[in-house]
């Protein structure tokens, strides 16, 4: 069974990130996700939206659409924007064992997104822009508290 999705559009303004986090907190919480799962998804959506606003729009006006859907046992978060095309899933994971100066905070953002989700998928938007889909099972992972 697929319940109706919840959706929010924010302008490309870091001050509005809190609204995106709250949307995910509300929908994931209502879906019965544990605190660990909710925290992870809030992290992932914040990192993704921050990247879009900071690097995608880079100060230019724009918008970010966030949709949170419950699809069976899975939460699916979709971020859509019309910023220049950029695939964050193509970024290498920072090598945590190497003291490399190339390991920038942006790399930490993608690392946190990967750890926090089960799947990250990117596709360009047909009319320009980006669509990033983050998927996570509602059930906690084996190492997490139920």
């Amino acid at each position, binding site marked *: 069974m697929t319940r109706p999705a919840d959706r929010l559009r924010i302008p490309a303004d*870091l*001050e509005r*990130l*809190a609204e995106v*986090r709250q949307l995910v907190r509300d929908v994931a919480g209502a879906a019965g996700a544990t*605190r660990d799962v909710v*925290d992870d998804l*809030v*992290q992932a959506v*914040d*990192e993704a939206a*921050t990247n879009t*606003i*900071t690097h995608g729009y880079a100060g230019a006006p724009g918008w970010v659409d966030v949709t949170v859907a419950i699809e069976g046992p899975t939460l699916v978060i979709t971020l859509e924007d019309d910023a220049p095309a950029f695939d964050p899933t193509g970024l290498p994971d*920072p090598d*945590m064992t190497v*003291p*490399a*100066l*190339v*390991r*920038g*905070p*942006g*790399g*930490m*953002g993608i*690392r*946190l997104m990967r*750890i926090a989700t089960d799947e990250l998928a990117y596709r360009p938007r047909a009319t320009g822009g980006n669509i990033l889909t983050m998927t996570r099972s509602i059930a906690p992972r084996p190492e997490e508290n139920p």
Partner: protein
Amino acid sequence: MALQTTVEQVEGSVPVTILALDGELDGASYERVIDAVRGIYEAGGRHLLMDLTNLQFISSSGLVAMHSSMRMMRGEAPPDPEEGWGALHAIGAEVAEGAVQANLRLCGTQDAVQKVLDRTGLGPLIPTYPDRATAIAAF
């Protein structure tokens, strides 16, 4: 929730400045933390305790603020956010060797925040205590 910052001065075996962060530390607010720590250092503060008891969220932007705070409390310029994390390893090695006193400490980290610190390798680099009293006594 917007981030609230509160600065307090206490006397332990050394003077300790407490910077309490309440709310969420994200891309909108991390520069305020850097500014607050810069102000503390410039005012002569040399022992900083960040009280994270009421910090519910930290993003990678917040980690940049933590990293910058470590640097500034060592008397160094905060790094360019694009420069990267290379300096973290050097700081961590020195702390482990006892070569320098850790001038920045944390207390009261909630699970969600500690998880992020640990997942990015920053957690072990900053001494962390359960509460203010324990942290102040450890300076």
